[in-house]
Structure formats: C-alpha cells, structure tokens
C-alpha cells in the first residue's frame, strides 16, 4: 500500500472518530432528557420515553439508519447523508445512554439524599451537588463502553454512503483489488481507536475516583 493510500485511510479513520464523537455528545444530551422523562412520575412523559428506549434498542441500527436516511426525504427534508447518519447514531446511542443514566441515578445511595434533606438542601441543590456527580461517576464506565460500541457501529453508516473508515476501505479494496490488505488495515485502525478510548476511559475512571463519596 502506497503512502498516499495509507493517508486516505488515516483521514477516513479521523472522520469516523469525529462522527462518532459528535453522535455520542448529542446522544448524551438526548439521553439525559429521555432519562429525566423516564424517571418522571408523570406518565405522559415516562411512557413516550419507555417507547423511545424500547424502539431504538430493539431495532437493528442498520434498519434505523436505512429508515431515517429514506424517511427524511420522503417527508420533504433533504439532508446530506452524513447528517442522516449522525441523527441515526445519536438516537440509537441516546436510548442506551438513557438506560445507563437511569441505572446511575437509581444507584445513588438513599441515605445520602435523606442526609441532604435533613441539612435542608433544596431539590435542585441535591441534584447539582449530590445526585448528578455521583450518577456521573457511576455511569462513566458504561459511557466509555457506549463510546466504543458507537465507534464500531459507525461502520454501518458506510451503507448510506458516508465515506468513513469502512467505506474508504471498501472503495480502495475495490479499486486496487486488494480486499485482504485494506480490510485488515481498517480493522487495525479500529483496534487502535477502540483501545485508545478504552485506555483513556480507564484513566478517567481513576481520576473520577479521587474524592469519591
């Protein structure tokens, strides 16, 4: 493989990382909202949240992507395929992250909240100072896990024509007739990315443990 082609693969790997990162951040935002709705005592909020989580966790990402990619133009919204891909990845990861966050919030020790009540903290203060920080620490490992899952799942957006790492490997494999080489290189790049994120996640967990409740 010439240096030029390897550069193309590296560039595509960067694109994969950027798209995944954007999707994870948007997904975290939506996930927080869905989690809040799901935890709400109001059934008008919790029922749609339950449906959202169940649907996006129960349907293959490939089908979600094909649906969104084809549905948006059908209802008159024409967007570039990369936008459809980010929407699909974000909604999917939001459903998983909402469940992770719910687990985190539910695992905050009751005694801490009772103690906070006793010393007169308002519900907002309790959320800001106690529930959110502890829930964040508890969900951090799941968040890192989810980031790795999305990095790998982003290979599916190649199907809707986004030129990320998998699609680049596909194109180069077809034009050079060397699938073994290009898919191996793509696999190796995914490994490097995933292992880096896993290593970074382990480091972040250690740092978050400092000053633990």
């Amino acid at each position: 493989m010439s240096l030029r082609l390897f550069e193309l693969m590296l560039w595509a790997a960067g694109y994969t990382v950027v798209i995944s990162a954007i999707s994870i951040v948007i997904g975290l935002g939506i996930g927080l909202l869905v989690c809040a709705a799901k935890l709400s005592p109001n059934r008008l909020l919790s029922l749609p949240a339950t449906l959202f989580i169940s649907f996006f966790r129960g349907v293959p990402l490939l089908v979600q992507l094909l649906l969104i990619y084809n549905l948006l133009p059908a209802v008159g919204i024409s967007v570039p395929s990369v936008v459809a891909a980010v929407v699909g990845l974000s909604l999917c990861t939001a459903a998983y992250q909402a469940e992770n966050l719910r687990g985190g919030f539910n695992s905050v020790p009751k005694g801490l909240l009772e103690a906070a009540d006793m010393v007169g903290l308002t519900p907002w203060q309790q959320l800001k100072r106690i529930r959110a920080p502890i829930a964040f620490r508890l969900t951090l490992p799941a968040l890192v896990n989810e980031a790795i899952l999305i990095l790998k799942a982003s290979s599916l957006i190649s199907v809707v024509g986004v030129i990320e790492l998998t699609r680049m490997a596909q194109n180069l494999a077809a034009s050079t007739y060397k699938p073994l080489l290009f898919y191996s290189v793509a696999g190796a790049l995914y490994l490097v990315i995933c292992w880096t994120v896993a290593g970074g996640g382990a480091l972040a967990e250690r740092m978050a443990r400092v000053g633990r409740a």
Partner: protein
Amino acid sequence: MSLDFGLMLEKLPEILAGLWVTIWVWVVATALGAALGFLVAAARRYGPPPVDWLLRLLVEILRGTPFLVQLFLLYFGGPFVGLRLEPIPAGLIGLTVYAGAYFSEIFRAGFDAVPRGHVEAAQCVGLSRSQILRRILLPEMTMLVLPQCVNMAILLIKETAILSIITVPEMTMVIGAIGSQQYAFADAMFLLALFYWVLVEICGLLGRIAEARLSKFRFAA
C-alpha cells in the same frame, strides 16, 4: 403510506422465507457461538499460559473491530487465501466467531464469579476436577451468566441484519428489495423495524421467564 399492502401480501412467501433465514441463522450462530465461547473460556482457564495469551489477543481483536469489517474480510478477502464462501455460510461463520468472542468473555466472568469457597469445599470433600466442573462450576455459572447470555442473544438478532450487506437473503434484504421494487423503501423499512422490534421484545420476554423459572437454582451468595 405508499406501500401497497395487497402487493405485500402477494410477497408473503418471500417475506416468510426471509424471516426463516433470519431466525435459523440467528439460532445456529447463537448456539455455536455460545459453545465456541465456552470452549475458549475453558481453554483460557485450564490451558497453559501461551494459549491464554493467544486467545485473549484474538478475543480482543474480535471485540475491538466492527462486525461489518470482519464480515468483509471473510467474504471479500477469503477468496484471496483460498476461502471462497457463499453468502450464507460466510455470514454464519462470521456471526458465530463474532458471537464466540463475546460469549467467551461472559463465561470467563462467570467462572470467576463462582465463589472460591464453593470450589475449595468441593476439593476438600474429594471431588475430582471434572466433578467440580460438572457439579459446582457449571450449575452455578449457568445462573450467573444467564441474563448476559439472553442479552447477547438479543444483540445477535440485531446483528443478523448486517448480513444483508453481503447479500444473505434474510429479512432486511428481502423486505428492502420489495420496498425498492415498489418505490416505497422508507415504508418497507418502517415495517421491517416493527418486525425486529416485536422479535426482540418476544426474545426479552422469554429470557425473563427463563430467568424467573431458573431462579430457584440460584445459590445464596
């Protein structure tokens, strides 16, 4: 909806054939993957250290790369090393190996989670290694890993959709093709999504029933 349901009904045999491929590929890959995963976990636990290192590397590679890339490597790269596979066998092998890697991690954690005291007690009363495996480790482990195995099985139903990309004639490919023919691809995908949703919910329900049924075998930790 611009999807013609009359036409859809005419295509019912094709759709059912696709559903059948999805289900049998899923069941076979899950069963073989679980068996493979168990062998890998056992070999890593009882084999010599180099076997453990080698298997660990393989498992980490399989878990650190997208299933789609693994599938492309097998299906498009295979012929260059003399491994020419039809779509269904390629998909089945790919999915089984992928599943095996994840199952092996589930079983490894299961082995580790059985309390040491139980194994030591079994050794004290003179049980042999194979007896300990059959009577203590396996039954206790089964209860511990069941929820994760159900999760993995559900994940694998969804992964079967990816096989459509290498033209395995399963549900996604069949319904996608019908949708394209009728210029109603989005509607077809919506229908397909509902299909999978129901399938996954049924699978989750069965898993919860199995867990409840088997919970009487759960030991007190």
